[in-house]
């Protein structure tokens, strides 16, 4: 069971989609029930992963290496590995190979949770082409899960591209007035990035062959050869990957597809888009760009540019967000700002920043996912997202106003809610590398309060001035149910994030060690100065070498 849990999680939504094919399209409620049950099942089958992963969070995982003419497992990073390299399409060296570490584990749990939440939220919002909608949604779900699980580059790319199509259709068919523009922009923009990435992947693939004589897309095998590529080639490969991932994140200045896609997408599409799809970019950076090209990302110029773009994204996204007149666009630009924090955490390249970044990715999925649900609820009732159309909504929808307040606070990083933990950790990590980076990024924290509170004031406070808003009904139980898991997660991460940090500890340290390998190991370094612990004599004794590091050497 444990050996194939990933495959089960991966294909549950797809099986559901196939099942839906056999339901007549007229019986809409049956389709809704089946889709919801499948999505819930998708979430439930992923739950056993939690205890299973938890007990081995500090254990070493495995990696595949090609030795003496065969593939063997060695201690490495990945757990719950399913499949063997090069066995799917042996002629080109592609394998059906799944596996996760702490980072992908968290993202997978986020995906299954948000998948369920967004399908639940579509119940009344989608009235046309119901069957196709749910089918595509479930296909999308499998595509996203595949991206986070694939340990084979070919498989990864298949999922990466495959998930574009359903998202394109979700925006293009069930979207708003400018849906075609948005859908095509989304598709072309993302495709542009992935084409260059494909070239880079092929380079790595042939490079691996020229070094070892083996054709393979197996990720762990490529991890061995790619970092040795000379800088003058590696920089171009990195840039190709960068473009692919930066568009997906999206990093400034590749972000303008995002507001359009969000504004036009149906609510559930926005939730998934912000909650999960954007994380593929950041995940790509962590999983591929960093370990493949350590010499490039450690290059101070490249790193400076990456950090610079992140910080510009943080402040710029917030500023643009402040001036939006459309609620959904406002939330979309706030995503640019929040994702700026995530990429900042990645490129500060230390354990604290990186774990903060992953945590913030989860947080952003929860908070911004909830924000899109929130906007969607008003939109469904009034069919407008103009801020000026609202005012005094707390008078008519008090429960809704309360939930919104909590989610806004979570999004702006109030302590004891999730957003704070991520931002704090990222800023701490950034500060340790460079004081200026943290100093500038903190501005984003201030602006976040400004644009969210101002939005809240204009929509919820005051008296109801627009007669159309007088009869708005408060949340239905189903709508409340969509928020419950998100609220629970928000408070959980805010109050007790330790489990998350522990899950991330091993992969994050491993990646930082891989990237900074040329430098003396941060963890194992013997303090040259008197350590803080010695001086204060209150904290427990000094640090040990992490398990992962032990396993690797």
């Amino acid at each position: 069971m444990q050996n194939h849990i990933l495959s089960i999680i991966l294909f549950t939504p797809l099986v559901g989609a196939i099942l839906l094919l056999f339901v007549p399209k007229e019986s809409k409620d049956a389709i809704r029930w089946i889709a919801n049950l499948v999505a819930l099942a998708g979430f439930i089958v992923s739950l056993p992963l939690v205890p299973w992963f938890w007990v081995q969070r500090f254990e070493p995982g495995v990696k595949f290496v090609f030795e003496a003419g065969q593939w063997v497992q060695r201690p490495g990073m990945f757990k719950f590995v399913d499949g063997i390299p090069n066995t799917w399409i042996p002629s080109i060296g592609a394998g059906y190979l799944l596996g996760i570490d702490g980072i992908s584990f968290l993202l997978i749990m986020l995906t299954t949770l948000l998948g369920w939440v967004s399908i639940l939220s579509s119940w009344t919002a989608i009235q046309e082409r119901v069957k196709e909608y749910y089918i595509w949604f479930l296909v999308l779900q499998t595509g996203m899960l595949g991206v986070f699980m694939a340990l084979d580059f070919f498989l990864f790319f298949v999922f990466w591209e495959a998930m574009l199509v359903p998202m394109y259709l979700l925006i293009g068919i069930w979207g708003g007035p400018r849906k075609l523009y948005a859908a095509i922009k989304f598709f072309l923009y993302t495709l542009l990035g992935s084409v260059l990435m494909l070239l880079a992947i092929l380079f790595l693939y042939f490079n691996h062959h020229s070094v070892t004589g083996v054709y393979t897309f197996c990720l762990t095998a490529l991890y061995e050869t790619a970092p040795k590529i000379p800088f003058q080639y590696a920089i171009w490969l990195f840039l190709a990957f960068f473009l692919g991932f930066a568009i997906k994140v999206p990093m400034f200045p590749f972000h303008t597809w995002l507001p359009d896609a969000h504004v036009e997408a149906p609510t559930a599409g926005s939730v998934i888009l912000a909650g999960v799809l954007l994380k593929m970019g950041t995940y790509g950076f962590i999983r591929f760009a960093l370990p493949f090209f350590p010499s490039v990302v450690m290059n101070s110029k490249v790193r400076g540019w990456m950090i610079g773009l992140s910080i510009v994204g943080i402040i710029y996204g917030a500023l643009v967000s402040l001036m939006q007149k459309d609620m959904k666009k406002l939330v979309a630009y706030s995503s640019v700002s929040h994702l700026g924090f995530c990429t900042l955490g990645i490129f500060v390249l230390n354990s604290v920043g990186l774990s903060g970044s992953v945590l913030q990715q989860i947080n952003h999925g929860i908070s911004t996912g909830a924000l899109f649900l929130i906007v969607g609820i008003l939109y469904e009732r009034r069919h407008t997202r103009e801020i000026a159309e609202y005012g005094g909504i707390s008078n008519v929808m008090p429960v809704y106003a309360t939930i919104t307040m909590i989610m806004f606070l979570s999004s702006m990083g109030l302590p004891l809610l999730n957003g704070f933990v991520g931002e704090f950790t990222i800023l701490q990590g950034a500060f340790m590398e460079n004081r200026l980076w943290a100093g500038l990024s903190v501005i984003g924290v201030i602006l976040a309060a400004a644009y969210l509170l101002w939005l809240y004031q204009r929509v919820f406070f005051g008296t109801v001035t627009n007669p159309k808003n007088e009869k708005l009904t408060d949340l239905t139980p189903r709508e409340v149910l969509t928020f419950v898991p998100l609220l629970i997660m928000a408070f959980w991460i805010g109050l007790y994030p330790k489990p998350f940090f522990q899950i991330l500890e091993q992969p994050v340290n491993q990646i930082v060690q891989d990237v900074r390998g040329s430098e003396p190991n941060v963890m194992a370094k013997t303090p040259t100065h008197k350590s803080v612990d010695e001086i204060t004599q209150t904290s427990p004794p000094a640090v040990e070498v992490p398990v992962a590091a032990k396993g690797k050497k």
Partner: protein
Amino acid sequence: MFFLDYIWLIPLLPAFGAAAMFFVGRKMQKSAVSAVCVGAVVVAFVWACGSVWQYTDWAARHGHEPFQQILYTWLGSDTGHLNYTTYNGTPARFQADAGFFLDPLSSVWLLFVTGVGMLIHIYSIGYMAHEGGYYRFFGYLNLFMFSMLTLILGNNYAVMFVGWEGVGLCSYLLIGFYFHRKSASDAANKAFIVNRIGDAGFLLGMFTIAWYCGSFRFTDVNALARSGHFQVGDPIITAATLCLFIGACGKSAQLPLYVWLPDAMEGPTPVSALIHAATMVTAGVYMVARSNALFVLAPTSMKTVAIVGALTAIFAASIGLVQNDIKRVLAYSTVSQLGYMFLALGVGAFAAGVFHVFTHAFFKALLFLGAGSVIHAMSGEQDMRNMGDLHGRTRVTHWTMFIATLAIAGIFPFAGFFSKDEILWQAWASEGGAYRLLWLIGIITAFMTAFYMFRLMFLTFHGQPRMGHEVEHHIHESPPSMTGPLVVLAIGSVLAGLLGVPHSLGGSNRLEKFLEPVFAREAHVLGAEHPAQLAAGAKEQEHTNPEEYLLMFLSLGLAVAGWGLAWRTYRHADKGYVEPLAAAVPPLYTVILNKYYVDEGYDYIFTGRRKLGPVRLGVMGLGEGSSWFDSRVIDGTVNGAGWITRLTAKLSILWDTWVIDGLGVNGTAIVARLLSYAAKLLQWGLVQWYALVMVLGLVGLLCAQLGLLLWFAVWIAATLFLGIVYLLAQRYLESRVRG
């Protein structure tokens, strides 16, 4: 150790109250709401008293160490594998505990926050009795108590920050309690965002500390700071403390971040008393006092604190001189008094600053609650120009407020006298030279304080009644649930000063002694660097100093003078009375009445809410610029790229249809067809003709071989002629047959 072992219950009890209101408050009776929420705070108060009592015992046995209790690891991981490197490359653990902490400093805060908080909760039962959203109000109040107590009891900077932001949130929620009013929600936003600016400073300060000291924990940081590991004047410590002080400026409403506090008066009056007078705004003082070990290592920061404090004190007091809204006067008075506290901290008199926080909590809470009682009696009227002669009908309110006024004005022997005098004396004695200027500012502020407070008293309770008949008819004393707390606080305002009676007046300065474990070592560090401050630290030996008595009499005299001036000016105030300043220097009066136009200036320059001519500056200006840049330049580039692609595609289509397909493909076909027409002429399908042509050809070839070109030509011509004739003949015959 019963109370101390469960010290985490103190913040958690109000948290439970808030949670209860959140989930079921809507369905609860008002009495049930008050029972839960007020009950939670009462129990918290009892628990706090028990804890402090047990702590004093415990501390005596443990060398006056702080009592710590760690519940769990909050941020980071306790495995020891999630680390960062400090400034000198030492690995340090990224870990912040959810831990609580009790020492004399937090004890002081704990007692007055729970005590005053409890009284204000009781007061609110009466004050809010007729308001909507009763459960919401009490839920927020309890949430505030939770945050404030977390702030006080946290054992590290991160937990303190939880409370720090938490009180900011509650302040936001409570200022915006009457959210239908635009002014209220504006004020709420302003409070939160200005506080956020301070919080950003706090965050950076906290990071600097973690980077430099390798821990968030107060005990670690203080131990390191006191170990002599850092030099006095260390630039990083200076930066850290300055960042922290920015945080303190936000929370405690100091220049230039004070602007939110006067607007915060939009909230219900008990809120102003609890949050914006007695407790939350002293958080900055608490934080600086808590970080005293670091601050004394940074003389520049200390100087900044002192100067900002003194300037804020006199600046706010001057605005308070002419305000007409009873709550605004008190708000500016609060800002001004907070300035005193920072002045004390800045000159190294930490205990004096804390002492003033403590006494201020009583009399300022009392003043606000009294003002609330007045507003209650006046049916919501807050403008003092429409009050007057209330003393007869609101006796309790009048007398208790009078006591508070005596206390804040610094009249002997009320609480404010001792604490304010201690600060002024320390400012005088700590260092010579320019520091005397700070003292001068302080003493002028003392005079202003006395004046505006008695102005408030005379305008409200004396003079001629200036309200409308309807309002006058309804004037009544408030219910006992409101006057009760007033009386208790009045007793506090009289007695609180006795905790810190200086040696020069025959007291024993108990509070300072109690706080000694927190601050004592600082006097030493300071003294090593500044001999003058050593003198201040050792003032206990020289408490017979005649200077001290002289200064005491001077400040007392100025306070009485302020009282007298107010009495002369306002005791007979009737409808349409004229402010003497307005009569004397009208422009100055207008400027001060409009609060030096600071809000307007901020709106023009920093927020951009107002346009400067056609230009919008500030954050909103930047936002507009960014939006323009985004839609025009960045998205313009993207759409431009799309447009160019489409243009290329269109050109390609033209090329494709006209050149490739037209000229290339179809052109070839046309040429071929033309050629085929020519060829067709030769092919009309008669075998005999072909045979003839072949024969002719053969003959021709033969001729050519033989050099008979002429013959060849004749042959060709003859053949063509014959052929054409034959063809025409056949066509003619065919047409005949068909015809």
